[in-house]
């Protein structure tokens, strides 16, 4: 039950970090209980800025930390900021509450089940240092019933969450939660004060009151529903709330609340001082504290959906699982930021789990590759395949070989070993790396991958020092760093010839649609300036990359832009059935030499086709042409294809419209993701052989069969961009921004990647945008800094703890300047004989990345339902294994999650709800295919935010505060109608405006006087000279800067029809397309686990 806790905890972490470490290890339950609540809290508080809820918790717990109280007050306000709703208008709460209400029903069931008991906090706190642990624990406990559970079993009843004490507090908090609305201002303060005492009740009351009122107010929004429910619950809640804590079971009603409160309670004291947002925090603190796994009260049963019968507990309503009590991604992220963001991550130690992708941290390479290059699902690999099978935790690494580094980190050194080329193991061909053992005084070295003893070539010989290390180890990157590059010799080049610098070919659709939408004109205009920013290497003055231009509709037009010409020459190739390149000289040119001609060409293209009536297009021949052009020029390169419509003209690769929504949810659904014909694969293979990478920009007005068209980009390591219903006015910025970025980014061409591993494991499966002609070599016609390859490993032998496991990823590629290089990334992992170690060193984000990719590939061959079931089953197995083998014994009704994986359910639910696996009515087949291929090469950070969007309240924190506001959970409950929120998932960016936002805010942000005057669907915020406007726009800009694709802003007004679209991204909620809410899913998960266990 306590699971919930995990979520809340977030806030506390910040400070606690240090503490945590201890935590992990210590078993949660026990210690917490034992430890004094207060202390721990202290720790927590620090971090939490984000949580508003804190206050409530503060309240509950406050008592403990007497000192806190005052703080709590302070927190109060903070808390508000955090929670939109609480924040300012009670009124708002109302509405939000409404939402909750709805859930409540569902929740009830949960509650019932949960009832109880529970709580356990598992021992899993591991990570954190013990001492703190105790403190924390307590805190946690407090926060979560979990802890409470330990001590005071009773509380469990509450929401199923355990902490007794906490319960109390929780209950207190409950009200809050329920109150959401109520909390707000008025009460908050009181609460704060109240804390000490058994104020909870009091609070609860007030809240209720307030809440009620709000309901009324909320009425408008969620009229019927909310109205009724709320009252019920809230009523029950408040009153009960206290009781709950006490008598956990009955109080169920409270539980929800409780949970919420509970958490807050504990931390508050400490936090309070620091920060407000409690409710969550509490949970968070627990959960987050990585240590322990959070336990979820079995109570869930409530999760109506899942059917378990909850306990009959009387108060059905109350049973509901409190969303605040379940593990909160926000909390976890926040905690990690606070705990690990401040110090650099030093890679010297084997098997270290790096900070989360959401944390900003510096990396110091001391022998292992930076997590920016490689992230693993687990940094501790089971020694045997049996263990691995038992745990079901996929062993995978997400590799981003050419990842961009922050400016503070140095890019890999380039090592030149001269004519002999890089030193390699004779047997397994692994490259020299820090793990190679030099023996016999340095005359030989033993390969760390295959144990083969190799001679050290004379020119490479160096003496060893007394530790057996080469004296020059620190002078040589390949002996001291995790990542470095070798200059390749001619042996590593195609045809044994050093490569010619690559070329970019721009291939522009000039059919009627493209011209009419303004795309052609826009693009040509942009290219004129963009060509000055082709990627260049190092300090090169100008890029070595040559460019070429092709336009096409039903036929292709090549352009001769040789510098000696006065005018470009156009060459039309109509023979699309048998494509060829009509010219050699003058097609690929150096930009600076041919600038005049190119400019002239780009000026004329829009004119030439201004009156075109040609609506049909071809596609495969275009790619073919580009590829042939590169072949003729004997270089690698990249095609930028700007395409608008389904290629229905008579030519190879002609497609028909096969979009059929009736196939959804049938066994044939997979065909929607499969290419229409094998021709594209064949073509892609040819492209790969030539080192021709294809980037596809789509501008469809209707179905274009992304599934088929994206085959070529997908297999050649390219990207697909899609701008549905492109209109220059609306989409220009997004397109141009993507284009600029895409053209400018550094790319490696004609690459081959190979992952070598030490004996015992083996890379068996690969996911990403590439082509493989055999089972080991990943061939990438092009690879840029955004593309990742996910590699799955399997055991083929025993590993031993002493040696650990090694990965070496070698990427042979041609740089933008035409230099052939080898980039090497090494990573050493630990091995374990205890499952607990495995669970302790997992990385959920990476796991999700792998699972998403696995599932997304699965839809090509299996019905979507099967894929979904597989995911759920695997997840349940992982968690069940943990429960069975690692968690401290506890009631089967308890949901116990490993600390490192406590977000697994919520994230997995997001994956399951994504449009690929569960399409909504408005999701087109193309969208699904598009997302499917997009996810395939996403890195961990991208999948993280993609599946669990960031929701940032903009108006909660003071305007002066320039830091990024703390995120809130992606749920409608968290939205307050008096606030404005920003939501982003790496592809989309929404600005949600509550219906009762203050006029002043509206005015300063939109430049209109009232909410009703805001244009729904607006995509640009007016540039206004005031703090708020600047801040918001600044924030938007910074968010965009973080993502590899430009996110177009959409302003969504509350209650507007666009809101439907927006709500799709509130992933903790039940989705319209049938996706379960977080709470429901968690219950379902629990049920599954229990089934497995029994």
């Amino acid at each position, binding site marked *: 039950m306590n699971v919930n806790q995990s979520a809340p905890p977030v806030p506390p972490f910040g400070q606690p970090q240090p503490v945590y470490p201890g935590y992990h290890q210590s078993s949660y339950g026990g210690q917490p209980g034992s430890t004094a609540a207060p202390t721990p809290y202290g720790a927590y508080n620090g971090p939490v800025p984000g949580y508003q809820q804190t206050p409530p918790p503060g309240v509950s717990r406050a008592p403990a930390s007497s000192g806190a109280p005052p703080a709590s007050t302070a927190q109060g306000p903070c808390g508000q900021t955090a929670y939109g709703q609480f924040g300012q208008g009670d009124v708002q709460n109302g509405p939000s509450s409404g939402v909750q209400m709805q859930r409540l029903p569902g929740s009830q069931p949960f509650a019932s089940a949960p009832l109880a008991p529970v709580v356990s906090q598992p021992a899993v706190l591991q990570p954190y240092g013990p001492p703190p642990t105790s403190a924390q624990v307590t805190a946690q406990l407090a926060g979560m019933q979990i802890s409470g559970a330990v001590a005071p079993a009773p509380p469990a009843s509450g929401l199923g969450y355990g902490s007794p004490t906490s319960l109390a507090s929780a209950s207190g908090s409950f009200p809050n939660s329920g109150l959401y609305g109520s909390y707000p201002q008025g009460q908050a303060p009181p609460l704060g004060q109240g804390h000490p005492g058994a104020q909870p009740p009091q609070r609860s009351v007030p809240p209720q009151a307030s809440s009620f009122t709000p309901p009324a107010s909320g009425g408008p929004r969620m009229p019927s529903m909310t109205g009724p429910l709320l009252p019920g619950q809230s009523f029950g809640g408040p009153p009960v709330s206290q009781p709950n804590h006490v008598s956990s079971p009955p109080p169920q009603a409270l539980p929800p609340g409780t949970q919420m409160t509970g958490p807050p309670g504990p931390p508050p004291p400490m936090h309070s001082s620091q920060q407000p947002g409690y409710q969550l925090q509490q949970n968070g603190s627990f959960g987050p504290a990585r240590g322990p796994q959070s336990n979820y009260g079995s109570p869930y049963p409530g999760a109506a959906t899942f059917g378990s019968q909850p306990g009959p507990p009387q108060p059905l309503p109350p049973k509901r699982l409190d969303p605040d009590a379940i593990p909160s991604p926000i909390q976890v992220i926040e905690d990690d930021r606070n705990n690990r963001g401040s110090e650099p991550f030093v890679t010297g130690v084997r098997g270290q789990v790096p900070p989360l992708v959401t944390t900003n941290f510096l990396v110091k390479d001391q022998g292992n590759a930076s997590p920016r290059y490689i992230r693993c699902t687990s940094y501790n690999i089971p020694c045997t395949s049996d263990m691995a099978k038992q745990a079901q935790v996929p062993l995978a690494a997400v590799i981003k070989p050419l990842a961009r580094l922050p400016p503070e980190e140095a890019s890999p050194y380039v090592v030149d070993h001269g004519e002999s080329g890089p030193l390699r193991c004779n047997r397994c061909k692994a490259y020299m790396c820090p793990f190679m053992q030099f023996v016999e005084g340095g005359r030989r070295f033993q390969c760390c991958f295959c144990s083969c003893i190799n001679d050290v070539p004379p020119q490479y010989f160096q003496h060893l020092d007394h530790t057996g290390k080469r004296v020059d180890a620190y002078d040589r990157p390949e002996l001291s760093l995790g990542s470095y590059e070798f200059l390749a010799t001619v042996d590593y080049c195609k045809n044994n010839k050093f490569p010619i610098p690559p070329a970019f070919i721009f291939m522009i659709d000039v059919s009627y649609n493209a011209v009419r939408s303004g795309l052609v004109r826009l693009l040509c205009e942009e290219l004129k300036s963009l060509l000055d920013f082709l990627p260049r290497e190092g300090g090169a003055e100008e890029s070595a990359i040559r460019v070429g231009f092709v336009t096409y509709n039903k036929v292709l037009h090549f352009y001769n832009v040789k510098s000696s010409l006065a005018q470009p020459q156009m060459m039309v190739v*109509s023979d699309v059935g048998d494509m060829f390149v009509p010219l050699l000289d003058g097609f690929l040119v150096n930009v600076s030499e041919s600038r005049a001609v190119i400019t002239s060409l780009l000026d*004329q293209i829009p004119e030439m086709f201004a*009156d075109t009536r040609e609506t049909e297009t071809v596609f495969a021949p275009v790619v073919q042409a580009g590829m042939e052009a590169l072949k003729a020029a004997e270089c690698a390169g990249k095609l930028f294809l700007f395409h608008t419509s389904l290629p229905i003209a008579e030519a190879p690769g002609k497609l028909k419209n096969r979009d059929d929504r009736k196939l959804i949810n049938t066994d044939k659904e997979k065909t929607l993701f499969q290419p229409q014909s094998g021709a594209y694969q064949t073509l892609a293979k040819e492209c790969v052989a030539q080192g021709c990478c294809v980037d596809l920009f789509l501008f469809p007005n209707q179905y274009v069969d992304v599934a088929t068209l994206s085959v070529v980009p997908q297999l050649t390591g390219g990207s697909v961009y899609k701008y549905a219903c492109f209109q220059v006015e609306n989409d220009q910025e997004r397109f141009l921004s993507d284009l600029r970025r895409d053209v400018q980014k550094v790319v490696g061409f004609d690459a081959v990647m190979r992952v070598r591993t030490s004996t015992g494991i083996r890379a068996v499966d690969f996911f990403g945008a590439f082509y493989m002609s055999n089972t080991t070599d990943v061939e990438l016609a092009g690879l840029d800094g955004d593309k990742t390859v996910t590699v799955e490993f399997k055991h083929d032998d025993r590993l031993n703890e002493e040696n650990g496991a090694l990965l070496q990823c070698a990427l042979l590629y041609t740089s933008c300047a035409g230099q052939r290089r080898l980039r090497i990334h090494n990573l050493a992992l630990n091995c374990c004989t205890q499952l607990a170690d495995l669970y302790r060193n997992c990385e959920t984000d990476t796991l999700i990345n792998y699972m998403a990719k696995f599932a997304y590939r699965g839809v090509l061959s299996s019905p979507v339902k099967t894929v979904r079931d597989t995911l759920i089953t695997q997840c349940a197995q992982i968690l069940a294994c943990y429960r069975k083998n690692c968690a401290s014994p506890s009631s089967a009704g308890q949901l116990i999650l490993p600390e490192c994986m406590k977000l697994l359910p919520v994230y997995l639910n997001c994956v399951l709800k994504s449009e690929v696996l569960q399409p909504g009515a408005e999701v087109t087949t193309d969208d699904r295919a598009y997302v499917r291929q997009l996810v395939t090469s996403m890195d961990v950070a991208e999948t993280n935010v993609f599946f669990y969007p960031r929701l940032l309240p903009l108006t909660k924190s003071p305007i002066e505060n320039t830091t990024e506001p703390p995120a809130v959970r992606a749920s409608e409950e968290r939205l307050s109608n008096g606030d404005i929120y920003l939501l982003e998932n790496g592809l989309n960016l929404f600005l949600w405006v509550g219906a009762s936002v203050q006029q002043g805010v509206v005015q300063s942000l939109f430049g209109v006087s009232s909410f009703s005057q805001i244009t729904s669907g607006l995509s640009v915020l007016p540039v206004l000279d005031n703090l708020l406007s600047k801040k918001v726009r600044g924030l938007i800009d910074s968010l965009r800067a973080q993502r590899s694709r430009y996110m177009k802003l959409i302003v969504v007004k509350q209650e507007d029809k666009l809101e439907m679209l927006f709500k799709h991204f509130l992933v903790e909620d039940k989705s319209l397309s049938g996706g379960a809410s977080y709470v429901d899913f968690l219950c379902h998960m629990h049920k599954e686990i229990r089934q497995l266990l029994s």
Partner: protein
Amino acid sequence: MATYLEFIQQNEERDGVRFSWNVWPSSRLEATRMVVPLACLLTPLKERPDLPPVQYEPVLCSRPTCKAILNPLCQVDYRAKLWACNFCFQRNQFPPAYAGISEVNQPAELMPQFSTIEYVIQRGAPSPLIFLYVVDTCLEDDDLQALKESLQMSLSLLPPDALVGLITFGRMVQVHELSCEGISKSYVFRGTKDLTAKQIQDMLGLTKPAMPVQPMRPAQPQERPSVSSRFLQPIHKIDMNLTDLLGELQRDPWPVPQGKRPLRSTGVALSIAVGLLEGTFPNTGARIMLFTGGPPTQGPGMVVGDELKVPIRSWHDIEKDNARFMKKATKHYEMLANRTAANGHCIDIYACALDQTGLLEMKCCPNLTGGYMVMGDSFNTSLFKQTFQRIFSKDFNGNFRMAFGATLEVKTSRELKVAGAIGPCVSLNVKGPCVSENELGVGGTSQWKICGLDPTTTLGIYFEVVNQHNAPIPQGGRGAIQFVTHYQHSSTQRRIRVTTVARNWADVQSQLKHIEAAFDQEAAAVLMARLGVFRAETEEGPDVLRWLDRQLIRLCQKFGQYNKEDPMSFRLSDSFSLYPQFMFHLRRSPFLQVFNNSPDESSYYRHHFARQDLTQSLIMIQPILYSYSFHGPPEPVLLDSSSILADRILLMDTFFQIVIYLGETIAQWRKAGYQDMPEYENFKHLLQAPLDDAQEILQARFPMPRYIHTEHGGSQARFLLSKVNPSQTHNNLYAWGQETGAPILTDDVSLQVFMDHLKKLAVSKIMCSC
């Protein structure tokens, strides 16, 4: 016989017709015994400055199977306003416009001097002339430059409303769009892929009427130009554009590795040119002008691979059946030629290269369509430049000396039938009452299409006398033949030229003398030569020679006067006296001898032989040799080695070459520089005289001959030595013991030996049965 000579000459002047026999044997049997068939050389568009075309349409015989045109030979009943067709004897009413005719008021076509008359047809919109340049870009830079200049120059010679198009080719084929401004645009085709006409038109976007234009311009005639306008534009509109475009033409940019020939897609380029015109301007006069500097090396129509180490096929290879690509290539070009001919367009080939360029395979293109074939060493020679310029020469009316899309119809009186034609034409496969079952040349039809022709284009037309021996023709009966030529005049008018000729019938038994006297040995030699060359295209060389020999022997047996088995008694009458000599030279000519000629050269020579008029043809058969010396005025001398004397300058005209040969002494004098000394000015004049004469020939002739100036012992002297009759050789030099003349190192038989043998065979009993 002067009378006959005059008669013949008059007829030629007036009608452009020369018959082998000017009195016709009246029965089939007798006719076959004459050995030389009844045939004529017809120059359909012979220039007649004195013949203004009449501005109305001809009157046709109303019998559907006849449709002969009213002519001076018709009997006219002026009162009844009736005329009787002289071919089918149908009686026809004059059309209303002729209501006023009478004996004194005759329309031109009834006047005897208008046996040849030309009508202008006013119907139908005039269509502009079309010139489509197909230019090879795999040339050396200076060659390409010269070619570009020639092409640019030619633009100024075209009438302003002529449509021009440009296709360039190398490894790829580019069809240039001429209408665009700013950016120059071309459609590119792979040079290795054969495309159907339909595909080509699809790819050029010709099949689809320009959508935006159509609704606005419903008028049918206007639509067509709009479709094709992108590739074929009136010269006055795009003069500058095209000049620039030509100026910017670059050598084919694809790299040519060491040891390889450039890849040249001639076959596809031609195919596209044909397809382009076919789709846009069928049945309109158009000229596809192919300029190539080497053999096609890829795609359909390739003649040789791109490996330089594999030489292009020689006659030796062909005999050994070792020419890999020949059959396929020939088939390709034949297919193109037939399509072109069907559309009424013609193809010219201007091939300038030191090596062969595949004329053998491509010859059918000009041969079947009436196009020109020009062969030179380089585009940067005056031979090419002047020849090319001469294509655009104009007549006294300022019109091009070229006509397009002609059909030639032959009508005969019922005693005669048409057996076939030899010349730059294709059969239209029109069967009719006057078509013979026996074919000579291109037969089986009474109509031929000649897509491109000029005033000198001459066809050999062969007839068969079908009148049976037992149905004698009444004394004084005449056979008539009408040649009707429809064509598009270069002024874009449609015209019809009608030539009606008649000759007397004669009974061989009683009037053999007449027949003999009316024998035109020059015409006969050319006509027989055409038959021989025509056969040589398909048969082995020696077979053809044997056939010719047999014909000659039979002729001598028939018309010679001799005592059996006594060669010394053999005599031929004047009208036959030169014939054996023509045959002798014909046997040695490059038309029948392939030795020392490449297949391309043979094709080139044969091409011209099949279209030139009688005079030029005779020069080709037996070159003319003039002598210049201090002994007298320039004089023609025997084409014999004995004519080669030290103190003479010889000027030889073989049609294809003009050779000036300085005798040994003359050469020494010149070397000594006498011509520069004032006191030897006469020597200077002597040297100059042949040059001037040569210039005259050079100026007039098309194609411009190769001009060779050589002297005794010069390597180029071989051109002369290979032509003269080897009366003195290393074998008989001492036997003759003369100081005159120059020995020729050859084993070829001399005319004397040839004649001896001929006499011997002619008088022998052993009759050739064929």
